[in-house]
């Protein structure tokens, strides 16, 4: 299923995942039916993924994340946007992240 996202959307970790940064690696375990399963569902992120993951705090919009990463890394905004959208779609498809509504008022 294709997930469509827009630049002003905000994503953050789902409540049903456990993440730990251990020995330099971000490890993500989704909790399915109250079980964290090392046998079936365990994910790790590469360096690019980790940089994006750390910005997915449930407060920053995708546009803000792209702007911040553009300032931090020597890559074009188009390339960064492509990576950010790619990982967000993948993480959302696996229900590791979810859309967060922005505070109003």
């Amino acid at each position: 299923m294709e997930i469509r996202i827009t630049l002003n959307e905000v994503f953050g970790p789902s409540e049903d995942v456990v993440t730990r940064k251990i020995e330099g690696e971000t490890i993500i375990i989704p909790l399915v039916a109250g079980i964290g399963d090392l046998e079936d569902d365990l994910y790790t992120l590469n360096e690019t993924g980790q940089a994006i993951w750390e910005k997915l705090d449930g407060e920053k919009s995708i546009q803000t994340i792209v702007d911040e990463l553009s300032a931090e890394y020597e890559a074009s905004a188009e390339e960064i946007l492509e990576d950010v959208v790619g990982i967000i779609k993948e993480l959302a498809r696996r229900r590791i992240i979810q859309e967060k509504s922005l505070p109003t008022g």
Partner: protein
Amino acid sequence: MDIIQGAIGTASEHDGISLSAPVVMELIEAVHEKGASFRFQAKGYSMTPAIRDGDIITVSPLKEIMPRRGDVLAFRHPERPQMLVHRVLHTQGRKYFIMGDNCSEVDGWIPAENILGLISKVERRGRPRFWPNRSAPSSWVNFYLLLYPLWPPLRRVLVRVWRRLRSFVSRRRQS
């Protein structure tokens, strides 16, 4: 773009990534903090035949359950960076005297703070094994835990009786 490296499987190896015992222990604690259980593959022979090498075990947070004689616990070794899954032989306050079913040496008295959780489920070749459900106490569970040392030899005797009976029936049919 290879950002998500995919399921990396067991604590030992998968796709070239290995998780050490301290990492697995940290993950168990992190999952338990959310009140969830942790499922992974057991390695070793210290609990054979109750838990065999390669069985999939589920470690649940203790919550209100007080470990008792016969329970199988996952715990941090007090002196080594190692996680063990062994059985409680005695309890004394918040200390547990623990030993593997297939071990010749005891682990000794393990303090409550070293306990990671209770083994709540064991699966072998994709099928759950009979295992006491401690979250729903019953007289049957109490009976099982009281007599747990008898089950392995009793099972061996029952298997032997069953095989003899089967061969007797088969001979009777042929004659």
